[in-house]
Structure formats: C-alpha cells, structure tokens
C-alpha cells in the first residue's frame, strides 16, 4: 500500500529571543519526526502544549517550511512554499483551524467563504460552484438560510462547520485538523467530531487530527502518535496504544484521562516541570519527570524501536523489556 503522505526526519527550529541582552536560544519545535499517513486513514497526534504538534501539522501541509527532512505527498516531494505548484496542491490538502472565528473573514458571508477555494482553483462554472456550496452546507449540517450570514452571527460550532465545509470544497485528499474542537463546548465537540467521522467515511479522505484531548483522539483515530518535546515517543494503532501504553509518558497521559466509575488511586501523576522546548534535558527528554528513569535515560537519546508489528516507542526501558521478552 502506498502512503498518501510520507514525512521523513522533519526538523523545525525557531530562534527565540533570550531577553534584552541574552543570547538567542534556538528552540527545536520539531526534532526529527517521521510519519506515514495511509489513504483514508486518520492519524492522531497528541501531546502537551509546546510539544510541537501544531508546528508538525503545518509542516505536513507545507505551510511552515521544514528546515530539515522531506515531505512527500502522493509520492511527490512538496513544492516550495508560495509557488504556483504549491498553491495548486492546496486543492488537495486542507486545514481546519482551532479558532474558526479567526480563520474566517468577518466581512464575507459564509457562502462566499465556502465558495472561495472553488474560485481560487477555478473549479466548475458559476452555477456549479453555487450548487456545490449548497451541497457542502447541507453536508456539514448548516441551514440554507445561513448562507447569507456573517461569521459573527453564527455559534462556535456552526463556524467550525463553515471552516470544515470550506476545507472540503475542493474535495481534498488530506485534511489536517489542528485542535478543531478544543475551542468548542463539550456538547458541540461531539457534534463536530461525529461530523468529521461521517465526512471521512463518505469521502474517504485521510486526516491528521491534532489534539490534546485523548478521548476525542481515541474515538476518532485509527493510529496515534504521541509527541513529547518535538519528538514522537510512541506510535501505534489507537486501540492498542490506549489499552496498553508502553512509553512511561503515554502511560501517564492515558491514566490522566478521568473515567467515570474508576477510582483515582492508580493514576500516574507526573512530577516536575512541564517541558520547556528551549531547555531540552540531555538524554531522553522525558527523564526528569519519568518515574522509572535510570542512568542510561540521562545520557542517551532513545530511538524509536519497533514493538511488535505495528507499534513503535522511544524508550530505553521499553526496548529492554521487549528484548527480554524475545530472549
């Protein structure tokens, strides 16, 4: 099976300011990430704030230039940003934003905004574009009379539907959703997630779903990649990964999800400071907060090791366990 999207060894370094007189501190937001996205697959990317998941999403789309590594879409390398080919490729890959109000032009009616990608990529005639807009609005559950509304006249969930409709207008093959539901009410979240799932089933598009909400990711995604400080620490099919997390960080994440009826005793509570990408600890980036850290964790950076057929994890201890199991 050929992959729709192949990313290899992506690196993105931001140069932060170190105060008035301080030295500029390079921040490795994304540090050597490789990913595969199959056709029709939903890949979840989870992690704390600052783990580089949004940056990674933008790099997969080619919106943020990669400083190292390559992105191949449908077998071809990503064209340089803001070139004609790059713009043409936008018709096949789209983004859903976290804040739908900011992503919409407040001066245009929502029908005009949903129509915009069709105008940009010159798809269809005047009449067919209008039909397509009506069709899209229906598909995302917007009423036809809302076509002439402005974004500020809609609710948060409706705005996000507009953004999704716009992203789907050109029948894109890939959708990157950057925390699409975290700005919404819980009840609306479910609606939008169900909408995304339904649309994916209907159109067979591939999706990268970036979120810090494990429940949503577990619900929606086929495969999940867990990020910590710009690196993927564990990856695997969503059901297996959540049922049996191997990396200590994933274990802590999974146990942090409250479940009704379960006592809170057995939770892994992380100690120490949340990660600061500007001050990356030596060795395994997670070792200062890891309950099981040993000497090897403080010195060597663990590589992603395969665990069984379809899972990988980057942890010295997990790799050791696996080897012991095999032996």
């Amino acid at each position, binding site marked *: 099976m050929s992959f729709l999207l192949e990313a290899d060894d992506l690196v993105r370094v931001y140069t932060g300011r170190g105060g008035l007189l301080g030295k500029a501190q390079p921040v490795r937001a994304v540090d050597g990430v490789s990913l595969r996205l199959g056709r029709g697959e939903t890949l979840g990317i989870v992690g704390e704030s600052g783990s580089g998941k949004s940056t990674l999403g933008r790099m997969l789309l080619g*919106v943020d230039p990669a400083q190292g590594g390559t992105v191949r879409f449908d077998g071809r390398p990503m064209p340089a940003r803001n070139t004609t080919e790059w713009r043409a490729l936008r*018709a096949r890959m789209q983004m859903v934003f976290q804040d739908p109000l900011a992503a919409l*032009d407040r001066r245009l009616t929502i029908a005009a905004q949903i129509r915009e990608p069709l105008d940009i990529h010159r798809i269809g005639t005047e009449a067919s574009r209008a039909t397509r807009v009506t069709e899209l609005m229906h598909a995302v559950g917007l009423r036809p009379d809302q076509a002439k509304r402005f974004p*500020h006249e809609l609710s948060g969930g409706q705005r996000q539907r507009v*953004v999704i409709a716009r992203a789907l207008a050109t029948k894109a093959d890939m959708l990157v959703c950057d925390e699409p539901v975290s700005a919404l009410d819980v009840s609306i979240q479910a609606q939008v997630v169900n909408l995304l799932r339904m649309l994916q089933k209907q159109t067979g598009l591939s999706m990268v779903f970036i979120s810090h909400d494990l429940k949503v990711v577990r619900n929606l995604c086929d495969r999940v990649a867990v990020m910590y400080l710009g690196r993927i620490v564990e990856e695997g099919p969503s059901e297996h990964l959540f049922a049996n997390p191997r990396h200590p960080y994933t274990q802590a994440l999974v146990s942090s999800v409250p479940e009704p009826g379960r006592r809170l005793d057995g939770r892994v509570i992380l100690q120490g400071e949340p990660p600061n990408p500007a001050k990356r600890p030596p060795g395994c980036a997670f070792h200062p907060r890891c309950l099981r850290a040993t000497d090897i964790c403080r010195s060597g950076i663990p590589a992603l090791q395969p665990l069984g057929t379809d899972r990988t994890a980057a942890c010295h201890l997990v790799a050791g366990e696996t080897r012991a199991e095999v032996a």
Partner: protein
Amino acid sequence: MSLVTPTETAPHRVVTLPRKRRIPLAVAAGLGWLALMVICAVFADLIRPYDITQMDLSARLSPPGTPGHWLGTDELGRDVLSRLFQSVRVSLVIAFGATIISAVFGTTLGFLAAQFRGIIEHLVVMLADFQAALPFLIMSLAVLAFFGSSMILLVGLMGFYGWERYARIARGLAISAGAQGYAAAVVQLGATPRRVYLNHILPNVASTLIVSMTLTFPEIILMESGLSFLGLGVQPPDTSLGNMVGFGREYLTTAPWIMLGPAVVIMFTTLSISLVGDWLRDKLDPTIR
C-alpha cells in the same frame, strides 16, 4: 416611589427595536454639504455671478448683503462669492487628489512591506520614519521655491503628506492578519498574494484607512492654506480657500467677510468629511451593523 408590576410593562418591552437604517441627521447634513461643495466645484464656471478677476473699484469692500454682491467684495472690488466658488474647486481638487495619492501610495508600500518583509520592509519603514521626522512644510517650501508653483506639482507634493501613516497602518494590520487568522487561512487555501491583499486584507483594514483619510483630508486643506498664505501655494489671481483666508487677514478688522466665508467653508467641509468618514467606517463593518 410606586412599584411597577412586570405584567404592566412587559407588553411594551416585547416590541422589537427597529433596526437603525436611517442616516443620522449630522451625517445627512454632512453628505448634503459635501454634495453642495462638489456641485460648486464642478459648476463653478456656470454658477459664479462674476469672473474671479473682475474688479469693480467703485464697490470696494462692500459688506455682505449688497445687491449683486451677496457675500460682499474684497479690497479690489472682486465678488467674494465668485471667488469662493473658484476656491472650493481648487481646494477640493488639491485635497481629494492628494488624499487619494497619499492613501494609495502609503497602503501599497505598507502591503509590499508586509508581503516581502526583509530588506523591502526595512526600506519602507526607514522611508516612513524619514518622512515622519521631516518637517513637511519646510520640505514643500523648498520644492515649490525650487520648481515654481503649479497645480500638478502642488497636488503631487501634497500627495506625499501623511503617506507614512497609511504605510504603517497597512503594514501592521497586514502582518497581524497574515501571522494567524483569515489571511493565513486564505493563503492556505491556495490564494495568490494579490487575491489575499485585495479581496481580504484591504476590505478588512479599509475602515482604519478611511478614518485615517478623514484625518488627512482637513490637514491637507490646512497645509495648502499655509503654503498659499506663505505665497508658495496657489498663485494669485487664482484663488484657494487658504489663499483667500491669507489675503483676507489684512482686512480682518475692517472687512471680516473676506476671510470668514472661506474659513466657514473649510470648517464645514472638514467637519462633514469627519462625520461621513466615521459613519462610512461603521457602515462598512458587518459586525456592528
């Protein structure tokens, strides 16, 4: 104080407020005044009773209300009303022309700076700082003294007044829109920079630019008045509002009507521009309709 029971007041409160569609009185008056000024400027040749240079030495300094000279005459017996029409034409051409030149020039440079960043942005910002640091009147005086005054030069020169404000506003707003938000979203849809700037960023920043224009417009009228007053603006016998005020100053105590007419026109025109500009800004914004 008697308590009003809710049941008594409730039916009155249910009445929905009609949406304000009527133009406010002040704005209507402003629009009317501006229309009047434009008509005056366009048909100045037809409606003025006398030629602007026609002298009537027997009727020098006649006060307003004199039959035949409803706004009086000046020190050479020229009809003030006729000269006022001509002044409105000249001043409006200069002020409108210059405001548009300065807005287009400044906004274009601001957008270029926001789009290309790097060296172009540095250059634009540096030019804007240079312009802001330079006393504009002194520079205009130098240019006019060197090249001699002509209408085209005057409009072009005034067009450089205040462009740095548009450039800064346009650059700042375009950068903030591009960093995150609708502009970034539209770029991500595959739009060309031309489309992003003309269809999305420009309409969104237009309200701020319009307010800036309503500020620049009166300033340009006043600047032209100042230059004319100093003798380097519109050259006599042609006349502008500022020019009339300048020459009427000498007769302030004996024949105040010579300068009061143009002064009142300047005041009402700038006031109207401000009112209409404010109203237009609100009108163009769908979020506060």
